[in-house]
């Protein structure tokens, strides 16, 4: 019994860590082989070793760290702003049919609009730096979040509101104790999706409207024909994206939202 559990734990450890690591190593080996074959000119296809050296350079100069912090700061600002403003609007649209009828087409319109279409205006209005990028991240996530909150509210089983009324929940206490917990699982799912979008958008936005950040680093590397640094940027962006999602997945393990994922 005890032994079999040990075996099980061991096999799950192998599956969650060793296998993915193996795949990563195989991928790097393939990459190394391809670069050794010189299918592309060396300047257009850096080897793993080139990239490792590039990493060292970026870390020693401190640039990588600066870019990382800049990008994370902008994503957090834009995303937090979008969450804070979208939840109240989504609640309103979910509860009030008239507001929904009036605003839903507009929300849908802006959600369908690629956030990258806003780049020219973002620069005209906010110049370059943090602000235009924060603005673009906001535009990329706000409308999806509003729709997700709205749909979640509209789908709350009416029996919850009956029970809430029976036990004396009204106004703010109803919102806090019933409506918000009832939509929390769906909100968390929406946060995961939109955080992923925000991370995609920050790179694109910084390429054009940034003077630093990971997106700008990529753009800068391309202009300097430093494909080794370009790959450094790509690797960091990918890793941070995965970590961001891992972080948000943890929210789905909270005991009082688990119910939303187990049906």
């Amino acid at each position, binding site marked *: 019994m005890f032994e079999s559990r040990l075996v099980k734990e061991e096999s799950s450890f192998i599956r969650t860590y060793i296998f993915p690591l193996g795949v990563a190593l195989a991928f790097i080996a393939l990459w190394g082989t391809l670069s050794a074959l010189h299918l592309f000119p060396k300047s257009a296809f850096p080897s793993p070793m080139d990239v490792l050296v590039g990493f060292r350079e970026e870390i020693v100069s401190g640039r990588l760290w600066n870019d990382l912090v800049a990008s994370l700061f902008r994503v957090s600002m834009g995303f937090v702003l979008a969450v804070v403003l979208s939840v109240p609007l989504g609640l309103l649209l979910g509860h009030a049919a008239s507001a929904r009828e009036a605003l839903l087409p507009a929300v849908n319109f802006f959600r369908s609009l690629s956030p990258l279409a806003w780049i020219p205006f973002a620069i005209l209005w906010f110049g370059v730096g943090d602000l235009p990028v924060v603005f673009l991240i906001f535009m990329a996530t706000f409308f999806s979040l509003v729709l997700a909150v709205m749909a979640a509210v509209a789908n709350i*089983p009416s029996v919850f509101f009956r029970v809430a009324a029976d036990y004396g929940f009204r106004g703010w206490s109803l919102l806090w104790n019933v409506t918000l917990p009832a939509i929390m699982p769906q909100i968390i799912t929406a946060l995961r999706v939109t955080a992923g979008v925000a991370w995609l958008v920050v790179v694109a936005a910084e390429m054009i409207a940034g003077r630093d950040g990971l997106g700008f680093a990529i753009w800068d590397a391309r202009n300097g024909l430093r494909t080794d640094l370009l790959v450094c940027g790509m690797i960091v962006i990918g890793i941070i994206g995965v970590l961001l999602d891992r972080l948000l997945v943890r929210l789905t393990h909270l005991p009082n939202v688990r119910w939303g994922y187990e049906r």
Partner: protein
Amino acid sequence: MSDKPLSLINVSHAYGTSAVFEELSVEIERGEFVAVVGPSGCGKTTLLNLLSGFLRPTSGVINRQGTTRMVYQSDGLFPWLTVKENIALGLRHLRDEKARRAQMKDLLELIRLDGFAGHYPHQLSGGMRQRVELARALAGETDVLLMDEPFSSLDYQTRLRMRRMLVRVLTERPRTVVFVTHDIEEAAQLADRILVLSERPAHLIKELRVGVERPRDPTHPTVVSTVKTILDELGLREDARELSAVK
């Protein structure tokens, strides 16, 4: 005003133009267990909603004494709260922390879920969830329990056990109960009085008293004869005979 916990006098109700009840009058005695049976869609849930005050009748008078609580058909528990937290909703009016804790302990023992206080509803079986709903509705000083087909989503054996549990709980904490069910056997096993409703617009086609002590076995002669009487009233007796012939 009468001293009856619940009474309907000439109550009519309609959704838009379609009448559900016409001139219905019912009185319910203190401590009585009244079962309401009738074809599906005849207005049983509507009747409970009128009794609880959730709906206002189109015409007629409804008198209500004391507090009423509804036990819902299915999944009225908040899934984001534990068993204990759900039951605590029913104890919110108690100011004294000590009294609340003592009540909670009693209720958990009453529904035999002492070991499950920290579980969430999705971790429980349907029967356990329904017991928690019952405990929540019993908490505090409720006078009347309105139960809308509380056991209908459970399998037969669980339903039998839940009936026995309900009888036990009510001997420990007597309440006036209006119990809606489409299960005639259930009504015959549990109720002091059974109201049989017709198709819409619903009126009382039969009122039966069952004078036998509870708990009653489903095979008790009075239960069996009560079931027969109700099947007769609903015009279902012939079907029942054919079914047993098939077996």
